[in-house]
């Protein structure tokens, strides 16, 4: 898995390109709702893009495939929803709470699973996430099949009314950008450098005195926290938190987004989320064919297109 990832990394001019892309991206984010694109759709897209970026931190930069990220996403949504709706905390605090709880879960899951590699790690995270799913099915505060409904969008510090969808949109955009920057910074930090070392040669890192497992757990925790942030934001946008968010299909979807966009690239997950969410939106008329199309894309990606869209572009540019 990491072979493709590593091929994508190049130096030099990449940083400048990144800045240009970032500026274009920012401009698109600001203008998009003003030119008539449906804000709810855009908000959904950003929530999932953040989710995919957070996920990619594990898959693309640590080389571990977590098949249980829906647990963090869904739990972030439930916690934020419950806090805002039942406890009446402010929207910002609710979202923050969702992210924190997801982060703590990430820490615990990480501690259990992190010593395993490859398939083992994937299966164990999947099973742990399924445990969370069943917990959510039973726990009273999630309201089982009903989910948490009618979560008020509330206000930002009593100043901005988030029921206005444009206000909500820019609020979500701010969260997305903040999350994205955290991912970016994490990758390009001393910690990120350490992760690269671990991905490239784990045994050597141990022999250099790095407590490798602790680094992986921290990466997993950051990834889980941001995933929780994405889920919590989604709950506020759609005003619901339901079992869909914790179901393993959700974990699969985020893998697909990352895979199709290009794992181990900064913008890949964003592009992937864009493709998948748009596709789901346009294919919505096709009923359960959506699942079939998703599955087909999955198979095609795995068989022939393992670098993903962004990965492929970068490889061509080189």
């Amino acid at each position, binding site marked *: 898995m990491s072979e493709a990832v590593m091929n994508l990394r190049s130096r030099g001019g990449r940083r400048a390109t990144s800045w240009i892309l970032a500026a274009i991206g920012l401009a698109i984010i600001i203008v998009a709702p003003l030119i008539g694109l449906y804000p*709810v759709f855009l908000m959904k897209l950003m929530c999932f893009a953040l989710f995919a970026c957070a996920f990619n931190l594990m898959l693309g930069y640590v080389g571990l495939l977590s098949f249980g990220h829906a647990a963090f996403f869904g739990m972030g949504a439930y916690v934020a929803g419950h806090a805002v709706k039942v406890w009446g905390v402010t929207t910002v605090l609710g979202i923050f709470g969702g992210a924190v709880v997801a982060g703590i879960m990430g820490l615990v899951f990480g501690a259990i699973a992190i010593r395993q590699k490859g398939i083992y790690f994937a299966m164990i995270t999947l099973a742990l996430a399924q445990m969370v799913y069943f917990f959510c*099915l039973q726990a009273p505060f999630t309201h089982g*099949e*009903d989910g948490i409904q*009618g979560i008020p969008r509330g206000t930002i510090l009593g100043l901005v009314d988030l029921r206005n969808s444009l206000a909500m949109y820019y609020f979500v955009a701010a969260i997305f950008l903040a999350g994205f920057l955290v991912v970016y910074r994490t990758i390009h930090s001393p910690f990120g450098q350490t992760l690269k070392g671990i991905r490239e040669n784990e045994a050597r890192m141990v022999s250099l005195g790095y407590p490798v497992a602790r680094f992986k757990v921290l990466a997993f925790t950051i990834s889980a926290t941001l995933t929780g942030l994405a889920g919590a934001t989604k709950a506020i946008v*759609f005003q*619901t938190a*339901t079992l869909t968010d914790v179901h393993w299909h959700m974990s699969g979807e985020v893998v697909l987004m990352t895979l199709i966009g290009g794992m181990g690239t900064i913008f890949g997950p964003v592009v992937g989320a864009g493709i998948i969410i748009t596709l789901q939106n346009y294919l*919505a008329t096709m009923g*359960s064919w959506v699942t079939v199309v998703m599955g087909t894309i999955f198979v095609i990606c795995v068989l022939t297109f393992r670098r993903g869209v962004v990965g492929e572009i970068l490889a061509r540019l080189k």
Partner: protein
Amino acid sequence: MRLTKLALATTALVGLATGAAQAEISDGVIKIGVLNDRSGLYADLSGEGSVVAARMAVEDFGGDLQVEILSADHQNKPDVGSSIARQWIDQDGVDLIIDVPTSSVALAVQQVTSDTDTAFISSGAATTALTNDQCAPTFVHWTYDTYALSVGTGKAVVEQGGDSWFFLTADYAFGHQLEADTKRVVEENGGQVVGQVRHPLSTTDFSSFLLQAQSSGAKVIGLANAGGDTTNAIKQANSFGIVQGGQQLAALLGFITDVHALGLDVAQGLTLTTGFYWDRTDESREFSERFGERMNGQMPTMVHAGVYSAVAHYLKAAAEIDDDGGKAVVDQMKTVPVNDFFAENGEIRADGRMIHDMYLVQVKTPEESEKPWDYYNILATIPAAEAFQPLEQSTCSLVTN
């Protein structure tokens, strides 16, 4: 998610030429979204049949309104349902959302429609919360609810001597509500409830739940679930010899499609409460036969019939006031009694509940059944006033304020 835009050209578009004076109807078209389960365990009792019923209502209406019908599959998931509803309203300009079985989805849709002044008529959902705490001025509950079901079946079974109950309950809003309502009726009539077990929606294996029900020693096992869950539970109860063991099953919400799926061998003797039976009057037979022609001979469930009745009533009201604002049309609907093959002198109350007579029926034995879909003996008619929760008990803010 399934959003089937039906081409208007032949069926749903009525009175193209006379669409001149419709200033009040936004974009000149009334758009009706049929939102229900099209692939899951409630697909048979609502699903495509509800779309067909809505289309028939539009055709039969024949007035000078432009009407378009959309449909989608909410997969029994509240998040899917509410996001379709939101998108329909925001992007497609839908004026009425109809059907929405699965109480949890209906509650989620209720949030969206009441925020956006869109009319919402539920035929398929059962929970009474829709006309109590969660009521809305844009909402009408048409066909049945958990209260009506419990009054019918609960009372009848206790009166026949089934005075100790164990509930097998679908673990979501509808199941909880149905269980609570039935429990109240059972206890009011001198029976007692010895226990209950909650099962997830769409359960395939009921064996361990049935075992608990069996060991509880209750005389009656009340199935507070619906559709595929009910038929599965009944079938498996049959294979575990529960009825032979002396316990009685009570399907609190049974549809004619469930009986059809089970076959009379298994279903015979079940007591059910229903808002509609196709073979009751000439009018109902006439509708049902037309419906059957389009549905491979399937007879309509009460949900299908309710959808027809509701859409017809809605169109009448909308045409009357020449408006498609949610509250405006619903207010108008409340002023006119409902009189058709489905309801005689039905009345939409302030809380949004459409009250009409309900029927206590028993499933025929195979020998009694003389023709296809000849499944029910009507035991009793429950008058509208008794069948539904009295208005004074409603906690709906439209009533209490």
